[in-house]
């Protein structure tokens, strides 16, 4: 059928296959050769797919095996104690686990309102001519490598932060009594880590939320306008409830990124190895930053402890990402189903 319609992609088809077109020329050996090539082809595809499975399961197994010495030595204390001392070969990761969660939480608190606002603007309000360049800019923000964010943060963000945020706060006496600000400001600290993470996860959350919002049929909004709602009422009462699960998925996806983010955080978090504190001015280390800093020149149980941290990071990000994907998947399904009914 499609051969009769002139189309550039049909050209190679007719050229390449013309010998096969006349049955006389196809000998038996050709056919068996072709069949065995087909088998080889399917086998090749299968092997490639199997390789992916082997990588993921190999990764899991290797992490478990290599983390075992550390787990044997420290047991569950690894997760609830505070000492990380390569000198005495004692390792416990609680400060890093808590710092990872805390910095990601700060990042989401800053990023989520801004991301969702941007997504609403891009999908609901933005004039058409501005939409493509703005979306492209947001995608560029996602393409900037982590280490470059770290560099910008060191050279620009931290000096600004110290001058205009941290020093003024630490000069107000009653503020320094709060656990959030009860340390002298450093520049490289939890606040800087959270801010850089916020900048880095914003494009992801924005992109997913925008896609979800744009997938919601136009008729849903029109129905709301017809009932006399204002533009914001249509968005708030009709569009957003449709999109809630999907946007939550996008936020969780952003959380997954933030938890595993390494370089930018390593460069600005201060890399302190002390106990976890709520203070935003605390020089901290996250799970990823400890691995990045120490694994290159560790030995013995130290390596195993770092790998155990990597294993925890692996499990946590896997759970978080799976949850996010399921949410996005089911929202997309819901929207499609709802669209058919309308």
């Amino acid at each position: 059928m499609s051969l009769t319609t002139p189309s550039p992609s049909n050209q190679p088809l007719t050229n390449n296959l013309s010998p096969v077109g006349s049955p006389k020329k196809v000998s038996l050996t050709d056919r068996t050769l072709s069949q065995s090539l087909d088998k080889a082809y399917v086998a090749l595809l299968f092997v490639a797919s199997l390789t992916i499975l082997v990588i993921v399961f190999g990764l899991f197994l290797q992490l478990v095996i290599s983390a075992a010495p550390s787990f044997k030595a420290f047991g569950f204390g690894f997760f609830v104690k505070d000492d990380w001392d390569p000198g005495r070969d004692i390792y416990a990761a609680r400060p890093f686990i808590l710092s990872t969660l805390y910095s990601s939480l700060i990042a989401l608190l800053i990023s989520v309102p801004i991301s969702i606002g941007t997504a609403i603007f891009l999908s609901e309000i933005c004039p058409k001519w501005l939409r493509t360049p703005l979306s492209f800019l947001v995608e560029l923000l996602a393409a900037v490598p982590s280490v470059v964010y770290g560099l910008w943060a060191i050279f620009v963000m931290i000096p600004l932060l110290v001058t205009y945020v941290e020093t003024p706060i630490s000069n107000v006496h009653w503020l320094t009594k709060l656990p959030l600000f009860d340390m002298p400001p450093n520049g490289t600290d939890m606040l800087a880590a959270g801010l850089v993470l916020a900048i880095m996860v914003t494009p992801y959350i924005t992109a997913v939320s925008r896609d979800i919002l744009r997938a919601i049929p136009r008729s849903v909004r029109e129905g709301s306008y017809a009932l006399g709602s204002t533009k914001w009422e249509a968005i708030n009462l009709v569009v957003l409830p449709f999109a809630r699960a999907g946007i939550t998925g996008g936020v969780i996806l952003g959380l997954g990124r933030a938890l595993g983010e390494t370089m930018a955080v390593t460069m600005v978090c201060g890399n302190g190895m002390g106990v976890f504190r709520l203070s935003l001015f605390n020089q901290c280390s996250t799970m990823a930053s400890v691995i990045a800093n120490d694994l290159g020149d560790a030995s013995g149980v130290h390596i195993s402890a770092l790998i155990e941290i990597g294993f925890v990071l692996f499990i946590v990000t896997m759970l978080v990402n799976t949850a996010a994907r399921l949410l996005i998947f089911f929202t997309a399904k819901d929207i499609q189903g709802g669209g058919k009914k309308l």
Partner: protein
Amino acid sequence: MSIDVKANGNSLSRRPAQIRNRQRWSTFVLELTVVATMIVVGTLLFILGYLLFKGLGSLSIGVFTHGPAPEGSPGGGLRNGIIGTLIMIGLASAIGIPIGILGGIYQIEAHGKFAWTVRFFTDVLNGIPSVVIGVFIFIVVVGPTHRFSALAGGLALGILMVPTIMRTTEEILRLVPNPLREASLGLGASRWRTMFSVILPAAKGGIITGVMLAIARIAGETAPLLYTAFGNTHFSTKLSKSIDALPLNIYNYATSPYPSDNRLALAGAIILISLIFILSLLTRFTTGKQFVDEK
């Protein structure tokens, strides 16, 4: 009757005020979303502007032709890092592109539990932080060979490429019109022949897009290289030895106390970002046109 009119009059006079308030509230909230967008775009322009302004100023021919200078003294360059990064991108491509493309083809040739499982775990792989992938390579390559190597770095980056390439390949192959495949099979062509002579040529642009996206993703990866490629102050192109990489240079020079080093970090950042932005721009142009004309 008169009461009725009065009531009507009342509600009429009240209604515009309500509507006005609702409209005002609507406008206010929508203005907030404009502010949010301005914050995002402003941050981006601030970052890009700073890098362009400072980075271009630190670029010179020497940056491309010189190796690192002795610690703290000016005149060093990023040659070793640039070449190291190119070598490792090549290695990663040699590993990641075939697995990714063949894995993507498998997804449309096979339907079943195994295909679904592979797809699910590719998504899992995509979500694993690069620092953990690096740890994996550290265990299976650096551990047994007792040395950091370019090969280990390339392997780590190669694994990071696979999910992106596989998913884009699969998505673009699904867009190829089915009659094309049916026509080829109907002419008696075998499955592999149909794939390699008909479907893949038709989907070429999209697959190249996937590959470029994957390269853009790994070009700036730093964390997994810290303990696989490790970095090297001497020039090296040997796969079995530790090797320098541009992102590693940026990391080390940005955290160095010497101003000349910081300038090099900025130059490195601008080189890296140009590479990545050119790749993403190219993908914009190749994807936009795919199959739109044919429909």
